[in-house]
């Protein structure tokens, strides 16, 4: 294949990765930014989203788009509810202590993963895409659905940004992130904000998973990759910075796509990890993060 089409394919693949990664990492970043909780179980909420998408779309007969749309709405809601329960039962009782919550979310990771293995099983199960239009380029074919993931993800990111910057809920969240004690003093129910943010973070991961599951089946171990990549993105972009997360996701996604097409996927992972090390050494707060107060 010639250089031009080769690069185009690499960029398309990279953009799909970026789109999903941006949503997942944004969830992780929000939870850390507002709650100062490093949620190691984030990848499992992603997995739950995919597994639920399979369950919902299989339960609904008729055109595949119906099942998929139902999954797109219901799966994140259910995952959000599960995250809410986890937050109430575990994180709140630990007073959101940073060290304790890391250990607790590791525990949640294993509990969710093993429950999925027990009730869903070890198989990778497919979800039918809502439409299967194949875009025929002169050099190769490309899935139309994959392109729609990029659009859907962009829409969701814009929506999240609007919520955070233009609504009262967003204002309250940002206030809590800026200084939770002062926010509490001003009558903001910090406790409820935490619960909401944790649920929202999990929902973002779940919605990313529902988008990706028609092109990569639901499997109980699928949460590990996104977790690692999300951490890379969040560290590079700066924990808690929405803009940084977005830029880093596009950067990592595109470089992953291009490097793995032209060289090898292993090299792409090596470079991403090296980048994390460089950022941690030279700019520990991340590219767009602000130094902690």
């Amino acid at each position, binding site marked *: 294949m010639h250089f031009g089409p080769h690069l185009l394919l690499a960029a398309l*693949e990279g953009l799909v990765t970026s789109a999903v990664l941006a949503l997942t990492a944004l969830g992780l970043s929000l939870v850390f930014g507002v709650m100062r909780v490093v949620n190691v179980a984030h990848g499992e909420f992603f997995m739950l989203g995919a597994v639920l998408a399979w369950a919902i779309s299989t339960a609904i007969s008729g055109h595949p788009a119906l099942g998929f749309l139902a999954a797109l709405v219901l799966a994140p809601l259910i995952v959000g509810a599960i995250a809410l329960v986890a937050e109430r039962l575990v994180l709140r009782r630990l007073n959101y202590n940073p060290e304790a919550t890391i250990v607790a979310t590791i525990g949640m990771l294993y509990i969710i993963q093993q429950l999925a293995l027990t009730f869903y099983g070890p*198989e990778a199960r497919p979800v039918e895409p809502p439409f299967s239009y194949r875009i025929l380029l002169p050099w190769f074919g490309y*899935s139309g659905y994959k392109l729609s993931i990029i659009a859907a993800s962009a829409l969701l990111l814009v929506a999240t940004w609007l919520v955070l910057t233009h609504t009262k809920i967003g204002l309250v969240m940002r206030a809590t992130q800026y200084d939770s004690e002062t926010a509490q003093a001003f009558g903001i129910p910090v406790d409820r904000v935490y619960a909401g943010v944790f649920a929202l973070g999990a929902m973002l991961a779940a919605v990313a998973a529902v988008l990706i599951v028609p092109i*990569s089946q639901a499997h109980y171990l699928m949460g590990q990759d996104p977790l690692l990549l999300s951490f890379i993105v969040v560290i590079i972009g700066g924990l808690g910075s929405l803009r940084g997360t977005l830029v880093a996701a596009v950067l990592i996604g595109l470089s992953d796509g291009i490097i793995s097409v032209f060289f090898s*996927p292993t090299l792409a992972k090596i470079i991403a990890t090296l980048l994390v090390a460089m950022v941690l050494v030279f700019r520990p707060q991340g590219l767009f993060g602000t130094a902690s107060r």
Partner: protein
Amino acid sequence: MADKNGFFDLSKTNLTRRTALKGLAAGAGLAVAPGFVRYSQAQSSAPIKIGFQSHRTGIGAAYGRWYEKTTAAAIKAINDAGGINGRPVEVIIEDDGTDPGRGAEVVGKFATQHKTDIVFGTLFSHVVIGSAPAAGEAKMPYFVVSEGHHVASTKLNRYVFQPGITDVKSQIQSMAPWIAANAGKKVTQIFPDFAFGYDHRDYLPPALKAQGAEVIAQIAIPPTESSFTKYFPQIPAETEVIYHVMVGPAVLTFVKELGEFYGSNRPQLFGFIDSLEATDINSPGLEFLDGSHFWEGSPRYAQPDDSAAQKAYRAAVGIDDNGAAVGDPKDVSTAAHMFGCWETLYVVKKAMEDAGYKGPEDRAKLVEATEALTEFAEGPEHPQGPKTFNGKIHQCFGIQNISKVEGGRLNVVHKTKIEDGLYEPEGDYTTQPL
């Protein structure tokens, strides 16, 4: 899984410690148990214990589940017929997480804690290779159902056997003439980037060359990869046949993305069914596979010429004519491989009877009795077909099936002969000390 550096893999330290504690507690419990000595004296009537190293979790989990079902069915059949040497057979299952490190631990656990008579059942080649030294060290007969060439290469040790499924080198050699004659001469290989894939990488080119065909590109893909389109530009345009063998949970994605990339204008496809094992070939997105060919160890779909033994085996394991679990058509089996569990257990039975096996002190005799076996006749104990066994390289050789995807099922279009897959032994395990 991409966490190759182990940054987040806290399971390792966690579980090792737990396993170690369990082992300590169990060891202490055994030492002080008053009945311990008496039990070993009454061994002749105690069950024969088979340690089953199962891929219950990890990328091999779908195989592990069906290996367990097949094993349970075989053990039931053996016990119903009076067990081995008049003793019932008991299977003890430990999960190896499809991980070589844990595989070796599990073998150690069988040897020291469960004190099983043998260890059995491993599929994934990196787990076999990782566990074999532990089996050799414990002088524990280790019967694998892996299909990799590592046992027959004589690079492992005298305690490792593969008597129930043909190895990849032999499979490739017996099918290469068919590929060159029917599919095409210019072949691009796509294989997983670990031991099992390397068998394909190393043995296909010479086998095809002997038939006047050639491998023009080899593409290795990490077994935990979840997206594949990025590899496809490496497939040269002049490719006539794509030879694919993929494993792990993302196999369906692999085949689907291949379909999106090529559409109907594709080269011929020849795949190992590993690329779609435990996956319904009628899944959405797989339509483009119609007309392509697959290797199958044992056919997934019931064939018109199935023997009575094959039918009885399918009924005992509980798979229907489409190779799915009876009562759950979505639960597709790993039919092409799991027959090896059934057949291996009958080889173990035969060898234990030949050796007059009484207990772990007879393990060396069991090894020698297994090495003395030469052939297995087709029948209820070997429903996949007849096999020969080479005791020097601990490997059996059987027939292979080439199946075509037609009308939403796999129909066998060619069966190889045992002689097609025989090769010069690369060594001799029997010269190693016991």
